[in-house]
């Protein structure tokens, strides 16, 4: 049952992400992102760049011992702060599960959708 709920939540997140499209990116074309795909990964936060025109969540993905840094792009700090984000929302070392639209070309970046913190189960963004 839990698995079904989890899948349903993911499906809803995907549907919501698709319905919202690339509007989160107010300053450039979002053509590089595959809005039809949502990737979910458990990551360790390296840094949150709380800057305009977009915030960047730098994370490390560990796959079978191979660690790769990914760049996840979000909205402007202005908009995100009005949605409850703060510069301190993500701290280096936080372990989170992130959802993002990947780059179409497979490079190590994506459009941030949402995250769930392993420590307390809290979520941010669209989850």
């Amino acid at each position, binding site marked *: 049952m839990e698995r079904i709920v989890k899948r349903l939540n993911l499906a809803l997140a995907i549907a919501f992400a698709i319905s919202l*499209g*690339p*509007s989160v990116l107010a300053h450039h*074309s*979002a053509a590089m992102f595959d809005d039809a795909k949502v990737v979910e990964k458990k990551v360790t936060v390296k840094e949150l760049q709380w*800057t*305009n025109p977009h915030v*960047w969540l730098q994370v490390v993905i560990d796959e079978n011992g191979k660690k790769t840094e990914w760049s996840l792009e979000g909205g402007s700090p202005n908009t995100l702060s009005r949605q409850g984000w703060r510069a301190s929302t993500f701290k280096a070392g936080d372990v989170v599960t992130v959802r993002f639209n990947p780059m179409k070309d497979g490079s190590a970046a994506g459009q941030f959708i949402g995250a769930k913190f392993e420590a307390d189960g809290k979520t941010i963004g669209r989850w």
Partner: protein
Amino acid sequence: MIIGSEVKSVTRLPSVASVIAGAALFCVVATIGADAQGTRPALPDWSGIWAMQGPTVFDRASVQPPTGRAGEPGVREAPPYTDEWEAKYRTNIDLVRQGKFPDPVSTCGTPHGFPRIMNVPDVYEFAVTPAAVYVIAENGPNVLRIYTDGRKHPASEDLWPTYNGASVGQWEGDTLVFSTISLKGSKDNDVIVDRTGLVLSDASRATTRLRRVDENTIEAQMVIEDAKALKGQWRVTKRYVKQPAGTWAWDYACAENNRNPIDPSGKTLTLGPDGKPLDK
């Protein structure tokens, strides 16, 4: 009976008092509604923070598909383009499909320009002063100055095309009616109207009616004309919704950390934290 007489007098009083009170109220309203010289009606209160309703498709009334968003392949609107400019639009729509229709504002420093300034995300402020109204868009940031001090547009020899052009207006009751001319327009997609590929020429101009339609809504009704690009008037309405009291607008310093420059082919790049492109 004294009481009855008093009651009778009191019951009679409103008809007399209402006339006096009505006259007094008229005087008070007239006084409040005039400037120091007693010649100008009170200006409307558009204070607060506002956000555009809906996504950044400029003409939401004509967009196809109806849920289409600017920047998504195949999304288009239906301005009354001439054949030549319809062809330009179709070329741009193809560029969007190829991921090669860059947004000029990605360079950080290029203004959105009019009418796009009325079509940006994030929040707005509408600053109403006796001599001018300022539309301040957080995104960009961008400022549209509309002079309401009675001046006319400068003579043509005193103008040059700019992103936001020159705007002068006057109040018709609580509605600001303003005219915008001298727009730069698009040459090589260096100024766009939205990311579907919409562009206008340097002959574009507009008359806009800006008013507060209710407590929570400001509306801009634009009538756009363009002797080069349009066969007739293009009417577009945008609405702005009041944000909760205490909402902040912030600095938007686009060049602070721009990791999305545009390469010579028109492709928008994604830079890594080291400043090198991640794109394959």
